[in-house]
């Protein structure tokens, strides 16, 4: 919100002595960060961030009030003469609790209207133009200076009576902005006998507005329930200066005061003559006082704050403070709706005192530290391992475009109601599309080799809503090598990329089937699997000791002719089983170390070079031992149609 430094100084004369730089330090320390300063050298306007709970500070006097409390300097007296109230000159009926008080007056305008320079300047600083209609300009000026929204009707356009009531289905109102809106029973309206003339606390109506030809005005200075105003503003998408202030809680006690101030301005600016002033309803009852116990204040502060000091700060804020037993009994001022619990009062004391005066300490441990959750540790371990293995972790949006592939019934439960756009509308069920898009973008940017992984939740629709499961996805695409003279560049053979990803998965302790990145695009493979399919994090620091042999190891190669269609796993398992059966613990490993395909081999056959490793825990193996075992392995291989390659 914008504040004109000159107008702030009008409310708090002591501010004239304080340089702008200091004001810009002072305000944040009170909870009002300064986002920027315009016209710093000439006539500064401050852009100040006011939090939602401080509706009372949304005016120059409101902000000055907080500064005055901190500085202990008096606000300028409010130049306000209370109007003498009399008979109601026009029937006003309050039919909804949301409006407890409605102060009004009728004035006859003079023939010449002139908005004074000072007011024009303030309105300009606020980004509003003076309309040179006294009733409109004065109401705006009051709003920015004192924070209480008021309204003026052209009294001669009102029919019969003014009623503050709930709207009725089917009613319509054309606002000051010229837009016609349908009203509902949740809208609080000001109506005359012909229908609604204003949306209470939000916007006046076009038909009853003040114009240059208006002769008599009826003023409105009321209090409306903030919740009601917020909902109306939200429902109609109408965020006006008035709804902003009423919506954050105006000061009900200001209703008659603002009416008086507005009337005084009309008399001064437009030669207006008061016809009569009166008030419908009454101020809402006093809210209950709040007890502030010293224990609570001292706990929050981390040190003993003398009660007198707390009393001083709260009194400066406008609270009525009385001693009550050990603590204070505090009646917050009518403009501070946000002070409702003792913690609120403690905050006020410490805020005015300055948060920089608070001490600093680490809270003592009250119990043993808790272990980290195993799912979290697993994810961290997997991510670290994949990074070590040469993969780059990506972070992509959790929502994707549902267009491709076509959306099935299942995915309907993962669609957002109000996405940023179609391409961000489906909570994703797979990481692969995001990985592929990232890979293709990198390749398009000239990357030769892309190695990516992502660890993120994916979603699956269930009747209760999308269900989340942590998922890891990997992708490898492009070409290898070519970055140094010892590693010649080569495109990944199809079987190589797939085997590489399988090898990485094996390293992680998992199995899954990679799929091509694109049917007809660049060569590459990708795979995903739920984290639950990976070994869980183990609390074990190091595994149990397993004895190993210090006797020589024997390695034997066996070249086998097998069918091209032969399954490796099946053959290797059968050979390993027979080796385990005869060699026992001396059998250590069996693996294919070479695949040979050549036209010199029998048609439909290939050669697998199987390497076996043996080592006994208790002795040096003899050639005889090993020969017998190899023979057994060959036997097992023969049972699967393999034969020894001559």
């Amino acid at each position: 919100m914008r504040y004109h430094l000159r107008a702030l100084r009008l409310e708090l004369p002591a501010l004239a002595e304080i340089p702008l730089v200091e004001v810009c330090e002072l305000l944040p320390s009170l909870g009002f960060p300064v986002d920027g300063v315009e016209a710093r050298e000439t006539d500064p306007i401050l852009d100040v961030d006011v939090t939602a709970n401080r509706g009372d500070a949304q005016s120059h006097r409101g902000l000055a009030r907080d500064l005055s409390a901190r500085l202990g300097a008096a606000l300028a007296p409010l130049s306000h003469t209370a109007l003498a109230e009399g008979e109601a000159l026009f029937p006003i009926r309050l039919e909804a609790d949301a409006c407890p008080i409605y102060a009004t007056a009728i004035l006859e305008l003079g023939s010449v209207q002139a908005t004074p320079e000072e007011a024009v300047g303030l309105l300009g600083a606020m980004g509003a133009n003076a309309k040179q209609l006294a009733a409109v300009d004065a109401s705006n000026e009051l709003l920015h200076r004192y924070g209480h929204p008021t309204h003026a009707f052209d009294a001669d356009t009102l029919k019969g009576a003014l009623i503050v009531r709930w709207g009725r289905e089917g009613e319509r109102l054309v606002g000051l902005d010229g837009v016609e809106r349908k009203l509902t029973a949740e809208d609080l309206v000001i109506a005359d006998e012909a229908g609604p003339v204003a949306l209470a606390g939000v916007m006046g109506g076009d038909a009853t507005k003040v114009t240059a030809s208006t002769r008599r005005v009826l003023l409105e200075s009321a209090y409306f329930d903030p919740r009601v105003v917020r909902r109306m503003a939200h429902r109609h998408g109408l965020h006006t200066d008035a709804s902003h202030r009423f919506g954050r809680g105006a000061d009900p006690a200001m209703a008659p005061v603002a009416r008086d101030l507005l009337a005084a301005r009309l008399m001064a600016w437009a030669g207006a003559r008061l016809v009569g002033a009166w008030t419908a309803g009454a101020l809402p009852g006093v809210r209950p006082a709040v007890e502030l116990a010293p224990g609570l204040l001292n706990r929050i502060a981390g040190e003993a704050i003398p009660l007198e000091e707390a009393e001083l700060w709260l009194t400066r804020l406008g609270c009525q403070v009385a001693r009550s037993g050990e603590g204070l009994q505090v009646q917050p001022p009518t403009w501070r709706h946000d002070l409702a619990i003792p913690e609120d009062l403690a905050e006020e004391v410490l805020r005015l005192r300055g948060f920089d005066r608070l001490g600093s300490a680490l809270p003592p441990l009250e119990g043993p530290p808790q272990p980290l959750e195993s799912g979290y540790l697993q994810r961290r371990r997997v991510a670290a391992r994949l990074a070590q293995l040469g993969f780059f972790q990506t972070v992509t949006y959790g929502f994707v475009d549902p267009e491709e592939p076509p959306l099935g019934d299942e995915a309907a439960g993962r669609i957002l109601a109000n996405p940023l756009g179609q391409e961000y509308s489906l909570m994703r069920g797979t990481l692969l599309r995001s990985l592929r898009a990232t890979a293709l973008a990198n390749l398009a940017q000239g990357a030769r080799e892309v190695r990516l992984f992502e660890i993120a939740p994916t979603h699956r629709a269930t009747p209760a809503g999308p269900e989340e499961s942590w998922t890891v996805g990997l992708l490898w695409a492009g070409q290898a090598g070519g970055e140094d003279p010892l590693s010649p560049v080569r495109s990944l053979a199809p079987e190589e990329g797939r085997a590489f990803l399988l090898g990485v998965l094996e390293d992680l302790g998992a199995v899954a089937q990679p799929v091509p990145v694109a049917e007809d695009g660049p060569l590459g493979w990708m795979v995903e699997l739920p984290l639950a399919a990976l070994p869980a994090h183990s609390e074990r620091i190091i595994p149990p000791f397993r004895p190993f042999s210090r006797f020589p190891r024997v390695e034997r190669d066996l070249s086998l002719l097998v069918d091209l269609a032969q399954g490796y796993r099946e053959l290797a398992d059968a050979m390993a089983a027979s080796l385990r059966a005869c060699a026992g613990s001396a059998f250590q490993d069996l693996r294919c170390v070479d695949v040979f395909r050549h036209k010199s081999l029998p048609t439909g056959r290939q050669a697998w070079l199987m390497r076996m490793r043996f080592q006994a825990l208790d002795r040096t193996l003899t050639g005889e031992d090993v020969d017998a075992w190899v023979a057994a392995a060959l036997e097992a291989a023969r049972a699967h149609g393999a034969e020894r390659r001559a």
Partner: protein
Amino acid sequence: MDLNLLPLEIQEAHAAFPVALAACDELDALNRLKGAYTGREGSHAARLMDLLKTAPKEQKRDLGAVINGLKQAWEEGLKSRQAELEAARKQVAGLAAHWDAELPRPLPARGALHPLTRVMDRLVDVFRPLGYHVEEGPEVETEAHNFDGLNIPEDHPARGSADTFYLNAHPGLLLRTHTSPVQVRALKRLAPEITARGGIRFLAPGRVYRKDEIDPTHSPMFHQVEGMLVGHDIGLHHLKGTLAYAMKALFGPGAEVRFRPSYFPFVEPGCEMDVRCPLCGGAGCRVCKGSGWVEILGAGLVHPNVLAFAGIDPAEWSGFAFGMGVERMAMMLSQTPDLRLFFENDQRFLAAMGGLD
């Protein structure tokens, strides 16, 4: 094949053959091994041939078979190893002699954790010694956890569809707008054991969603790290001490912080913390908009309603909570100028961010 027919040293030599063969990593060594096993003179094979000559006639047949078997095994082994070494040598043929070690060398594959992960991991590591564990919650949340349990009133503007993403088929579900609902979940779950545990302290890193258009400083998905501590007699000084420690751990021992009053519905008192601008050191620059300070997190003492909502007695227990934007912190730590870079995942950026400097 009965090796027992052979002298012991030949038996041992045969047993040692595979190891010796594998140990030959150059052709010279292989040729020496070849000489020792199958050479014309003085080799194991030559000795075996002498043995065969002098053997009694009735043994010659069996012995001949054994010797042939051995020689064949050795020759095969030598031949295949020779092929391997020659292939390897061919690749670097002629290169080794005048190879300049400064030529680019093959590097081990280098990957990297995403910078946002690195920042979140570091935060967890920084808070671990203070006894914080990690709590997590789902991205698709209920209104009750995301708003109600955090004292955020039903008509709060943040709950509107202009700010919060809602699920189409499930009106009560939304994409969490902050990591604070993890507070609600964790407090509720841990409330029954709070006394036994000696309070609650945790960090909640995670992804959150807000309906912001994508630009250099906004993203509809971003990351937060929430922290919470509940104990006895917790005050603002504890919040200050904890965060000052954490900021020094992140930004270095000279890190300077300041606390300002602020407002969040789920804390009371509420505050925001600024750090002295790490770019300009406080002199004023574009990043800190000339103020010398950069806002880095929101915090406060846990609102008694939030404790009570979770079933924890606010008369006995008190605590603090804080929440920080990970992207913002990553941008400050790395001077990355545009938030979108974190989600583009250009490998060049990821590789650079994986560096240690």
